[in-house]
């Protein structure tokens, strides 16, 4: 079943955007962006074809990784542009309304909660910090550990003991890494207004062979961003047994939530 007509794709609800602030930025599939104003807020929207963005089409398209990536990147580009001009509460992907009146109704319903969310993120950016075990770090240090003294190659009991010791060391190393990652998080949290721990990503998705111990999001005042980055660098130097990856500044995706 193909739905006919067009809908309004909502990228973000913003505060402080001027009518020309998004000039030159396009929406989904090159559609023109529009600001739907309601009270002191704006909704950043564009038209989408329901043959592509209708419910039936989405069920299919969301399983197509190439489609998903294009749409996610287009969404992200608009959110970035809006975030450099005003305060943004980014919407989840593919939030679509029938028309502008529908958008206004929803903003009216949620006005106070949207305002709280915008207050929380105003003047702030999101930074991502991921912590991995290092290949040479404690979590791997057991692999080539020398055999325990006195164990001969022919001794089954010694072999088992060595295996047990290895397992114990591996477990201890893992706990040590997790504890260290927790300390890194605490240090970063002390420099952030808010934090959020996302689920560690699967190594098959990250391209890292090392285990991701922490997938943290940190909300940091705009003018403290470089300081935050420097803190991550310092912690990375301080803990060579961990690999720290820092990215940002990003729009406050993880913090503009309705509580």
């Amino acid at each position, binding site marked *: 079943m193909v739905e006919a007509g067009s809908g309004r794709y909502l990228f973000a609800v913003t505060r402080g955007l001027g009518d020309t602030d998004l000039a030159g930025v396009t929406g989904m599939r090159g559609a023109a962006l529009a600001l739907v104003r309601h009270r002191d807020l704006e909704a950043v929207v564009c038209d989408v074809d329901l043959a592509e963005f209708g419910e039936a089409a989405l069920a299919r398209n*969301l399983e197509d990784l190439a489609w*998903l990536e294009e749409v996610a990147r287009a969404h*992200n580009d608009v959110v970035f542009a809006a975030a*450099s001009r005003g305060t943004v509460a*980014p919407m*989840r992907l593919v939030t679509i309304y029938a028309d502008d009146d529908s958008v206004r109704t929803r903003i009216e319903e949620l006005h106070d909660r949207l305002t709280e969310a915008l207050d929380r993120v105003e*003047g702030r950016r999101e930074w991502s910090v991921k912590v991995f075990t290092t290949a040479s770090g404690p979590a791997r240090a057991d692999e080539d550990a020398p055999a325990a003294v006195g164990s001969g190659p022919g001794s089954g009991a010694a072999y088992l003991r060595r295996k047990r010791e290895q397992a114990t060391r591996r477990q201890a190393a893992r706990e040590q890494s997790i504890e260290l990652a927790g300390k890194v998080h605490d240090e970063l949290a002390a420099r952030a207004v808010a934090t959020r721990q996302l*689920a560690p990503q699967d190594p098959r998705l990250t391209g890292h062979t090392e285990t991701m111990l922490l997938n943290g999001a940190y909300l940091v005042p705009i003018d403290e961003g470089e300081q935050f980055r420097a803190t991550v660098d310092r912690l990375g130097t301080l803990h060579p047994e961990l690999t720290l990856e820092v*990215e940002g500044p990003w729009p406050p995706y993880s*913090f503009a939530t309705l509580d």
Partner: protein
Amino acid sequence: MTELTSTTRTTAELPGSPQISLVDLLDRLLGTGVVLAGDVLISLAGVDLVQVRLHALITTVRSDLARPEQRGG
């Protein structure tokens, strides 16, 4: 129409959107952010289901991509 001048803003320019990895992007665009029920499309519960399916999908596709280059775009 409300006119706002760009001289009094407290927000600093964000450098043009960098290459955020798709995984990071989907973590945020599907896992966090403001969740509003759309009008006619994808119920809230539906979104969560989609998300679960997506992660499974990405895992599959990624392991495919780890093999020799394919998928022309």
